[in-house]
């Protein structure tokens, strides 16, 4: 990648396979984060996203150490973590914020131990911590697409039930809606969404992409439907901005994504105050 590229090189970039992979992967990440994140905010569980993301660091480190595909080990660790957190919450072992804190620390220390055994950080680990959208290869894209289809498919099919459970779980249960199954399903979606986002925004910043587009959308949307639409628009805009600036000016995509979504949030907030 030469540094003399400008925005006018975009049509040429679109012809490259690495850019196409990045574009498709980025959009899937944006859609998944926007929708899962909106439900997370409304369920007041944003910390779950952060906790699982940090826990997945342990999975990445194990994968790198053992020479297994790191997103696979991250997926396993994240799924175990969300199931354990919801189990502890259900059985009253601990409030969900305390169990999240425990798993966050446990996962992160696992990562630290494994890394020290391996003899230190390497550059590959960095790409998982902070994402590296332009290095998405065919196998990554396939992983992201499969996980993305599960996430978007589940929400597409069960969004009304999820909305009902989010609004009032107790009355949903009395209406005959399978609340427990939906809540477990949603927790798994959180794990999947985080894992599929790692390549794009990285473990450290994924929670921001989960939460900020939804927060902006909540200021504008009146109906649930329009709020979800706004969240998708803000999330996608941010990711595309990150991809473009990364490809053209070689600025870290994750940083640009978070800056853009925060900028949009401030703009929307200001607009609402002035209105």
């Amino acid at each position: 990648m030469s540094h003399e590229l400008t925005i006018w090189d975009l049509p040429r970039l679109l012809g490259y396979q690495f850019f196409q992979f990045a574009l498709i992967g980025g959009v899937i990440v944006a859609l998944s984060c926007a929708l899962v994140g909106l439900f997370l905010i409304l369920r007041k569980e944003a910390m779950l996203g952060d906790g699982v993301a940090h826990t997945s660091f342990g999975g990445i480190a194990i994968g790198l150490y053992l020479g297994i595909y790191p997103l696979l080990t991250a997926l396993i660790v994240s799924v175990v973590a969300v199931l354990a957190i919801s189990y502890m919450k259900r059985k009253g072992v601990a409030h969900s914020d305390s169990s999240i804190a425990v798993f966050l620390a446990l996962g992160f220390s696992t990562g630290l131990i494994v890394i020290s055994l391996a003899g230190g950080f390497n550059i590959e680990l960095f790409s998982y911590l902070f994402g590296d959208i332009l290095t998405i290869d065919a196998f990554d894209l396939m992983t992201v697409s499969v996980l993305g289809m599960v996430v978007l498919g589940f929400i597409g099919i069960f969004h009304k039930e999820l909305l009902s459970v989010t609004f009032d779980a107790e009355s949903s249960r009395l209406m005959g809606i399978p609340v427990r199954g939906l809540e477990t399903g949603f927790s798994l979606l959180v794990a999947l969404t985080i894992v599929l986002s790692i390549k794009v925004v990285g473990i450290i910043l994924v929670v921001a992409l989960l939460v900020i587009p939804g927060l902006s959308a909540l200021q504008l949307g009146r109906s649930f439907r329009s709020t979800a639409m706004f969240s998708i628009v803000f999330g996608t805009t941010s990711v595309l901005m990150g991809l473009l600036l990364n490809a053209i000016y070689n600025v870290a995509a994750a940083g640009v994504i978070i800056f853009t979504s925060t900028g949009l949030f401030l703009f929307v907030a200001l607009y609402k105050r002035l209105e």
Partner: protein
Amino acid sequence: MMGHELAEINLGQQSVHKETSKEVISIENLNVFRNGTQILKDVDLRINSGDYVGIVGPNGGGKTTLLMALLGNLARKSGTIKLFGTDIQKFTDWHRIAYVSQDAINFDNSFPVTVRELVSLGRLGRGRPGRRFKKEDWDKVEEVLEFMGLTGMARKRVGQLSGGQKQRVFIAKALVRSPELLLLDEPVAGVDAQNQEQFHKLLSVLNSQKGTTILLVSHDLAVVFCRMSKVVCVNRDVHSSELTPDLDPESFLRQGYGEHFHFVFHKHDCEADFSKQEVTINGGLK
């Protein structure tokens, strides 16, 4: 021989069916404990199809607990409960029942959901989870919005409405289920007199014109004694009575509220309160 047997079996089923369609609720010997204290004691109660039942009793008497038992929402209880003739353990037709909780309107006002969206969620729980809403679902939503006088605010965020308007939204959410049995827990708390009046008219219409069986927890004793067909008084013990003209409200209520309870009530008070009773289904509560 065969033919004879068959006829007998059919006859048997028919009579069973007749009985089940009439008795909507039957509770026998229900006991409920919570943290070691008895909340409900030896409850026997029968509610027939088309009854309009007022549930009264002091705070903490166990009214909400009784409704929870009927909704299968109590882990520790003894006794038998039948809904539409089926033991509650085996009952699965929850779409025939709708419930509005005491604190339905206490939700986060910033929650992004419009009146129409929230009311449509009442259609969930029938059919398989995840099914798409069909035209019939949306038609029902529109019909109930119209009936409840909510059409004009269907696109508003629910959190922006007044307490009384929110109340109507939750009733609407219950009504889109086309329930045969409607359980309402004190839904007029905090609603002004005029809206309460409209609310009670609406329930009378539902009961008399659509035949919906209604159980309404209410602290408004005058409304109960004027309008309803049956009264249930809950204070650990449960007493019930048909509301016949020869029932003396005061002595009935003393069984639940205690010996010093005074309730001055004359049947002619009803006429003053509810003189304008005629309502048409589509008259709309504006």
